């Protein structure tokens, strides 16, 4: 299954979950937020949220800014 993560293509096993992606990106335990196809995926549902072919995923965090 191919999806897009932060603008770059990524290949995941079928029915991968958000939690698996976060682990794979080594972001477990980090303060992040996740959006799939423009909709927020709450942290509490990472374990059950499954990706689909072509999903556009954004993973964001806080950085310095005014």
């Amino acid at each position, binding site marked *: 299954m191919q999806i897009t993560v932060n603008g770059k293509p990524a290949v995941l096993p079928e029915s991968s979950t958000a939690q698996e992606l976060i682990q794979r*990106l080594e972001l477990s335990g980090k303060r992040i*937020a996740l*959006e799939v196809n423009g909709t*927020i995926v709450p942290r509490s549902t990472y374990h059950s949220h499954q990706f689909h072919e072509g999903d556009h995923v954004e993973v*964001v*965090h806080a950085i*310095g800014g005014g």
Partner: protein
Amino acid sequence: MNTAIKSQDPLADVFTIAGRSYRARLLIGTGKYKDLEETRRAVEASGAEIVTVAIRRTNIGQHKDAPNLLEVLPPDRYTILPNTAGCYTAEDAVRTCRLARELLDGQALVKLEVLGDEKTLYPNVTETLKAAETLVGEDFQVMVYTSDDPLIAKRLEQIGCVAVMPLGAPIGSGLGIRNPYNILSIVENASVPILVDAGVGTASDAAIAMELGCDGVLMNTAVALARNPVLMAMAMQKAVAAGRQAYLAGRIPRKRFASASSPLDGKFF
């Protein structure tokens, strides 16, 4: 004036945003510092209680163990104010705020800014109004960056923004408070806190904003790009406090001609 407490006790002089009281009237941005350690030291020196952050993509595969901004500025110590910097449409700004709320465990407080063009970074007021309506409808507590137009400032308040933040001059310009009479009109008509956001170049600019009766000043570049950011942060804290005290104390009216300070009676010459 909404929350101004006419008191000589600086500890009692607080202002309230979205139900939470703050003593520090200097709010500080965290962009453009050399590194996170300099950010931390400057924020600490400024005495700020509210600090702004930007929301951006994680650098996947990079700096895995690098410290995160929110580890250096923990949300249990500071009120973290996520901004929508870099957004040019209401849609992008709303999307950014939704991500920020998720990132900060449901925190509703956000700084809305929708920009018009890259050269001036002037606020796009029509998109700002649109975004503010959507965000207030979704129960966000919106501190909104806007132009120094008193009618638009009032409109944003009527929409339900919890603070209105007109620019003193373009973002990062350091030109100071270019239109003090408009800032004054905004302050006089407001029933939510008014903060000057953007344009401050040095300490006297911050003092002028406060002398006009603003509830606070938000700045970033003036501190971050000063030759010595930590020292400038200290100067800004004092300037904001001094301007506030001068506002509460009440300045003398301007007169065209002199008025002697020493008595004329008892002269022996």
